[in-house]
């Protein structure tokens, strides 16, 4: 009979790391390196920076883990460290852009063209991917982090709120506004495929 191996919780591993257990550290690195690297990459869109950030994040883990009061909050703490390190890179590289247009985004439903029915080869084209990436990169830092954490990395609102030190309504609000900006960018781009009304006769 095959015995199922019991998975050790993050909280237990963190407790053991605090006591100097390097095997537990190795397990945490194995569990979280992809997640940390992916988040750093999608925030910076730079593979070298993402690798450096990942190293920095795990060094911070070694040096600061003793100050983490609730071991069960480890994952969101790690995401926070990753986000802050990514912000640091983006600020250094001056990759945050003008935020003025964000103030003018409203819940407007004046859109007349439903581009959702376009074929996949247009929706998923390289050009539309570039438009979307540029739009994500143009978001202000907190909004960008919330959108990437939710829509790219698939984190829950509660996890994002903990990681970003925001309330859940604040997460939802930034997420919604961020998505509106992305939707607007895609709408502007896809509008060139709109058929003029009555023009197909």
């Amino acid at each position, binding site marked *: 009979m095959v015995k199922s191996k019991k998975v050790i919780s993050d909280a237990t591993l963190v407790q053991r790391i605090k006591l100097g257990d*390097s095997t537990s*550290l*190795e397990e945490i*690195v194995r569990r979280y*390196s*992809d997640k940390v*690297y*992916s988040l750093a*990459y*999608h925030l910076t869109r730079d*593979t070298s920076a*993402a*690798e450096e950030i*990942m*190293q920095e994040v*795990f*060094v911070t883990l*070694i*040096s600061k883990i003793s100050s983490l009061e609730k071991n069960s909050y480890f994952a969101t703490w790690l995401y926070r460290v990753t986000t802050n390190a990514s912000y640091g890179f983006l600020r250094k590289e001056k990759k945050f852009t003008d935020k003025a247009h964000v103030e003018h985004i409203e*819940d407007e*439903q*004046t*859109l*007349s*063209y*439903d*581009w*959702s*029915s376009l074929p996949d080869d247009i*929706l*998923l084209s390289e050009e*539309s*991917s570039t438009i*979307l*990436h540029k739009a*994500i990169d143009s978001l202000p830092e907190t909004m960008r982090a919330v*959108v990437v954490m939710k*829509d*790219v990395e*698939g984190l829950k*609102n509660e996890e994002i709120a903990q990681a970003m030190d925001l309330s859940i309504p604040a997460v*939802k609000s930034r*997420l*919604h506004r961020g*998505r*509106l900006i*992305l*939707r607007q960018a*895609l*709408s502007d781009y896809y509008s060139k495929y709109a058929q003029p009304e009555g023009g197909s006769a």
Partner: protein
Amino acid sequence: MNCKKCAAIMEDYLENNLPSEILIEVHQHLDSCDQCKIFFNTYRLTVTLSRKMQEPCCVAPDMMERLKAFLFERLNTEK
């Protein structure tokens, strides 16, 4: 249900977080309002595309080896 409220609760709608009575109101509104239907379709697809258009990235084996070597060196210097 009006257009403004319908747009404001889109996130809860996509997350299946709405109580059934509100859900019914949303569906009724979407059935009767073309503008909101377009807004909903394009909003939902924006979320889908955000996920689909990101290349999946994970730590390559050589990168993992560099990370482990780097960390265990740091760990030894901390001792």
